């Protein structure tokens, strides 16, 4: 830590100079605190646990207020995270509290991917912060820090051991966030079972290599209390927002036919310990761990993944900027190559299409010519026929006129004869019949 740094620098030749009087910079922490108070604090808690373990109730009890939200159903198709931000104020300290809760955790039949939305969410917050930090024009001192500072993992009070879902999820989360495991609804377990349960849980966590958050013991003022608290992990808590009259005071409690469980009674549950540790003693340390350990780890992995190193093979310090430039040029070069390729492909396709179209055009022309010729032939035939027909008609007409002429001549000469003949015939007819 930096105290060691300063001490080292003292040794390095930075001499400690004695003061001949009161200078007054001991007011520095107060100046610092005043500035922080005017700017406000942020704290983000993630509650991971199965549906119905009392996550929302515990948050209400911890912060002595009623946050909104209806309880979730058990029929969620996948795990989702619900995030709410609240502004709390106590005397002159303002706290921007964000509570993120898992909805539908542990309800699915196939829980293999249950941890993924949670890990993605945490990574997304780190990513947002990293993006802001890497911007050219950034406003980090007014940036709303959304990184998760503490993860409360709710363990179901079975009394036996951790579920495999719990182990898997905690293992995935321990390098990304400060995990504080708590046993939820612990009024379902008796005292003796509880001690056995706690021992079992801690041994399982240790044997699986899960790193839960240890309260810091390096500062004398809090070392003692943190040390004892570390031994009580995981905390067995009960949440309740109902107040009942016990003795002559109103207390938060849960009433059963066989007795009343008081939330703030240390003999009944570890709620007070949790509140002490989470808020009153270690809030600042949680935030610092998130920033200096988990965020730095994420940042390092992300940047290394993108290909940036601190030293090149000759182990000369690499400037991040040079790497960026090199990468950018590489990227642009690739982009240009791709562009060229695409352009060439496009040109080729255009040519092909053009050729096709020309072919079609030619065919059409040929067809047109053919049809035209056909049409002309037919027309000619028809005209010939018409001509012959006309000739025939003319010939007929001539014969007709000739015949008519003959007829008229004959009829004039033998016209009367025919009449007589007719009469005779008629007379003959009369005679015959008589």
């Amino acid at each position: 830590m930096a105290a060691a740094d300063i001490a080292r620098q003292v040794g390095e030749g930075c001499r400690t100079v004695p003061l001949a009087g009161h200078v007054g910079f001991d007011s520095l922490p107060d100046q610092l605190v005043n500035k922080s108070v005017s700017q406000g604090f942020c704290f983000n808690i993630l509650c991971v646990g199965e549906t119905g373990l009392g996550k929302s109730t515990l948050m209400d009890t911890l912060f002595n207020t009623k946050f909104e939200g209806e309880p979730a159903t058990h029929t969620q198709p996948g795990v989702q995270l619900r995030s709410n931000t609240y502004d709390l104020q106590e005397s002159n300290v303002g706290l921007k509290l964000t509570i993120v809760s898992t909805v539908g955790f542990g309800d699915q039949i196939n829980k293999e991917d249950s941890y993924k939305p949670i890990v993605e969410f945490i990574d997304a917050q780190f990513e947002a912060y990293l993006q802001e930090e890497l911007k050219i024009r950034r406003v980090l001192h007014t940036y709303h820090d959304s990184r998760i500072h503490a993860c409360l993992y709710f363990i179901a009070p079975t009394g036996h051991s951790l579920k495999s879902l719990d182990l898997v999820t905690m293992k995935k989360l321990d390098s990304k966030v400060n995990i504080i495991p708590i046993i939820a609804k612990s009024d379902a377990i008796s005292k003796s079972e509880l001690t056995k349960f706690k021992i079992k849980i801690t041994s399982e966590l240790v044997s699986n290599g899960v790193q839960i958050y240890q309260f810091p013991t390096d500062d004398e003022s809090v070392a003692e209390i943190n040390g004892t608290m570390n031994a009580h992990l995981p905390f067995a808590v009960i949440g309740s927002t109902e107040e009942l009259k016990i003795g002559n005071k109103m207390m938060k409690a849960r009433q059963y036919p066989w007795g009343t469980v008081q939330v703030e009674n240390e003999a009944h549950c570890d709620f007070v310990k949790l509140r002490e540790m989470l808020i009153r003693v270690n809030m600042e340390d949680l935030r610092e761990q998130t920033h200096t350990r988990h965020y730095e780890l994420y940042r390092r992995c992300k940047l290394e993944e993108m290909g940036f190193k601190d030293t090149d093979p000759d182990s000369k310090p690499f400037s991040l900027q040079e790497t960026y430039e090199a990468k950018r040029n590489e990227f642009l070069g690739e982009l240009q190559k791709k562009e060229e390729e695409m352009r060439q492909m496009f040109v080729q396709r255009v040519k092909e299409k053009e050729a096709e179209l020309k072919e079609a055009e030619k065919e059409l022309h040929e067809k047109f010519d053919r049809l035209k010729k056909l049409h002309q032939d037919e027309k000619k035939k028809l005209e010939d026929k018409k001509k012959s027909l006309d000739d025939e008609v003319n010939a007929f007409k001539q014969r007709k006129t000739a015949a008519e002429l003959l007829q008229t001549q004959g009829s004039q000469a033998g016209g009367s004869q025919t009449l007589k003949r007719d009469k005779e015939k008629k007379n003959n007819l009369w005679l015959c019949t008589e």
Partner: protein
Amino acid sequence: MDTLRQSPSPCSSRPSSPRTPPFEMFGPVGIEAVLDQLKIKAMKTGFEFNIMVVGQSGLGKSTMVNTLFKSKVWKSAMPSLEVPTPQTLELHSVSHVIEEKGLKLKLTVTDTPGFGDQINNDKCWDPVLGYINQQYEQYLQEELLITRQRHIPDTRVHCCVYFVPPTGHCLRPLDIEFLRRLCRTVNVVPVIARADSLTIEEREAFRSRIQQNLKTHCIEVYPQKCFDEDINDSILNGKIREQIPFAVVGADQEHLVNGRCVLGRKTKWGIIEVENIAHCEFLLLRDLLIRSHLQDLKDITHNVHYENYRVIRLNEGSGAVAQVVERSP
């Protein structure tokens, strides 16, 4: 907070934004304990403060630093005849750790001997600007590393105290040029040095003329008006702004006055008490620099001047940093 490395507790909006009223809590939760946690952490990490004093030789810069921090930070040099005045401006930095009531402060004082001493003082501000930018650069490089240190050592200049010689007339062209260039890069606090050569009326007149000069040339000295956050700040800083530049006298010898041992300069016509507000405004300067605005100086250096430098520097590199990051997944 010293550096970005520590968790950035200040977050965006003020506690009660007008849109969402704060949640009502039915009992004490213990949120204000975080203030104590902060204090404990601050005491543990210690503080760093870097101050630069600029002015012609003989104006009492080293003595002033010694008086401010009540210790022999600089061995005030009596210029001997054998030591030639330096031909170019060199910067001397010296670091000390001072402790008061359990609080450790690493103080770095940078002196500029030879400033304004040459015949041709053209571009004498360049080494100073170069030094300041070099500190920013160092910090930037540290910040850009992949594996960063937990606590980046902060050598950036938090405050530059500019000593104006007590001519009694107005700011000289050298002063104006220097102040103009530096006020954009670092927090500048001008002071009238060796104010014991001016009477009170001359002092006031000199002061108002300097203030006018500063306004005419648009030089924003600390505390800058544009960074006043709320009405309280502007009232407080307004009062300070009325009295800038402070007329100061430095002394590191103690004398007996009315039975008390005070720091002062003894002359034939009386003893000038440094810490007497009627004699000189040293107390105001000390309160501003150390007791009330030290953290503010550091914050403005970190949030404003350093960020400005960073923007320019990263834009120079053809904006490679941000663009690459924004493009890649």
